[in-house]
């Protein structure tokens, strides 16, 4: 039975929450400005709790099982993070309170900025961007501001490798740049010959996802960066895959000029069914003045008796605000807690074991699933979800995994691998979980030959069967029924 919607459950006259009667005289309501009716559901508290509890049971989640979703870094989200973000001292402070009343929050933000700088090798960080793609937009606008400040306005192109994240082209286009693609060579690196042809005085920058979406570290990274710099361009680092580099390499040291972090991937803040994320941006020294603000700084030095006073400053030639207030503070509390608990050594351990887990799974699967790029992977790898001798697609394998209570890997991305299955186990999964997944994958490969219909019809045990996506797009029912106003 599908779960009814809140409107279908609604019964006229039912009340979920009561509020006190006014303790002040009632003012006259502006009759001409009032709405006629309010078509909202009417439910008891218990009905609401049951409705959403029931809905929650229809979800797969990290708390429930293995979630090897490539490039999404579905690691365990420590529970302490949630408790800390809910402390009234964090959850109940207004963003416009006088800075003297929010020093704890400002210290936390300042320390997080410092830690992200140390982890990445950048000179300055703004915590404002709300998500990864928002960080990309911010970074590309910073690149634009840099060139414009130098009166170098003819630089209109951004190069994006075909192994980059899917959001990169749109982020560049939104910032007014022309997008030029560069291909990947047989080893999974940026094709240097192709890149060379594009390095001219029209080049504003290159957006590099490293490790790329094949899970491979760019072997010519120093050369790529040098070529772009020599042509007068800047290098944007897509930090979505930073989990593989924690304590292993600092993008700023390698010469990357600007990068976003995904606190919701690398630093364990929960994905929440699609957000909120958090996408701080780090830059090298020459770009610091363009960062979006305000950002946290010491506004009055301390002395032996007094702690320094933290406050907000706007970088000198800031691109401006990219959102209201200061960013997703609640996510910053979680990420800060996580970094504190891991410490420097713990961060390196994260990268080491994320890479170990991915290479282990690749070793266990590569005989049965074709892995087109076989060199050592970093935190993830891409296999082909198809075989020459059977008519089975990556989608069928993905859906069949659901029957074994495992979340499917990312499929059909990256586009440069045929029928891609992009597998990222993360460091928080133990060997038993990885082995169980590998065993199921091998079993599915066998089923593909022996009982292919089982895959094509999958899932069989999930809350629903496969959905009619064509009907959804053609009929476009985007709201449930609700009473007429």
């Amino acid at each position, binding site marked *: 039975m599908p779960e009814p919607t809140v409107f279908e459950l609604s019964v006229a006259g039912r009340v979920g929450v009561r509020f006190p009667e006014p303790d002040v005289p009632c003012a006259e309501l502006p009759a001409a400005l009032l709405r006629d009716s309010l078509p909202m559901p009417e439910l008891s508290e218990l009905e609401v709790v049951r409705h959403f509890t029931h809905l929650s049971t229809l979800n797969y989640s990290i708390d429930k099982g293995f979630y090897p979703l490539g490039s999404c870094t579905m690691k365990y989200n420590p529970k302490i993070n949630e408790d800390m973000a809910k402390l009234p001292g964090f959850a109940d402070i207004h963003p416009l309170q006088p800075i003297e009343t929010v020093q704890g929050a400002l210290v936390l933000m300042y320390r997080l900025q410092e830690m992200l700088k140390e982890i990445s090798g950048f000179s300055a960080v703004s915590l404002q961007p709300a998500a990864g793609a928002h960080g990309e937009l911010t970074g590309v606008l910073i690149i634009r501001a840099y060139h414009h400040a130098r009166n170098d306005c003819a630089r209109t192109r951004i190069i994006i490798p075909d192994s980059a994240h899917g959001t990169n082209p749109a982020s560049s286009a939104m910032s007014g740049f022309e997008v030029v693609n560069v291909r990947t060579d047989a080893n999974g690196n940026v094709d240097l010959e192709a890149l060379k042809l594009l390095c001219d005085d029209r080049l504003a920058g290159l957006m590099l996802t490293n490790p790329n979406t094949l899970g491979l570290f760019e072997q010519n990274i120093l050369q790529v960066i040098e070529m772009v710099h020599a042509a007068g361009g800047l290098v944007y680092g897509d930090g979505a895959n930073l989990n593989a580099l924690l304590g292993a390499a600092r993008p700023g040291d390698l010469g990357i000029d600007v990068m976003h972090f995904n606190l919701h991937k690398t630093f364990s803040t929960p994905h929440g069914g699609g957000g909120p994320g958090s996408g701080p941006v780090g830059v090298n020294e020459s770009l610091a003045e363009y960062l979006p603000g305000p950002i946290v700084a010491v506004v009055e030095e301390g002395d032996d008796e007094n702690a320094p006073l933290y406050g907000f400053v706007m970088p000198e030639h800031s691109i401006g605000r990219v959102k209201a207030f200061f960013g997703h503070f609640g996510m910053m509390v979680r990420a800060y807690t996580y970094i504190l608990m891991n410490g420097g050594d713990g961060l390196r351990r994260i990268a080491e074991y994320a890479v170990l887990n991915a290479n282990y799974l690749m070793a266990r699967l590569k005989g049965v699933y074709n892995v087109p790029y076989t060199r050592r992977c970093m935190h993830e790898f891409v296999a082909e979800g198809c075989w020459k001798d059977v008519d089975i697609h990556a989608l069928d394998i993905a859906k069949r995994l659901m029957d074994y209570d495992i979340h499917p890997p990312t499929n*059909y991305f990256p586009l440069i691998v045929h029928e891609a299955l992009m597998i990222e186990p993360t460091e928080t999964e133990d060997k038993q979980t990885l082995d169980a997944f590998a065993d199921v994958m091998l079993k599915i490969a066998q089923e593909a030959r022996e009982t292919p219909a089982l895959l094509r019809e999958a899932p069989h045990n999930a809350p629903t069967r496969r959905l009619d*996506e*064509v009907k*959804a*797009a*053609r009929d476009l029912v985007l709201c449930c029924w609700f009473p007429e106003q």
Partner: protein
Amino acid sequence: MNIPVDLIYTQGDEWSKIEGDTATVGITDYAQEQLSDVVFVEFLVGVGDVVEKGQQIATVESVKAAAEVSAPVSGTVTAINEDLPQSPELVNKDSFGGAWMIRLQMSNEAETKALMDSDAYAQYVQERSH
């Protein structure tokens, strides 16, 4: 794969039917198959508009992909297929007939010479299937 012999083709998988100085334009059977179920067609030009060869004239969306349709030749738009936005599935069912997209009065008929005939297009499709 259906590739009618009386049409001419572009590398962008548009077909054109030439009758006098009029070109009727649509997307090929191969294109609709690559897109899978089409759910949306939008015209970017209207009757009376002058279009250049290569200019985008329509957008076609399926559940998993989007494609831009370009004018194979230059000319003035004399008709657009008003049925398509309401019935985008026509693109899948009848790509060479009911799913024609626009009609152009050509301004430079010589441009048709640069387009592929059915044999050349069949080979072009074949090459990409590998």
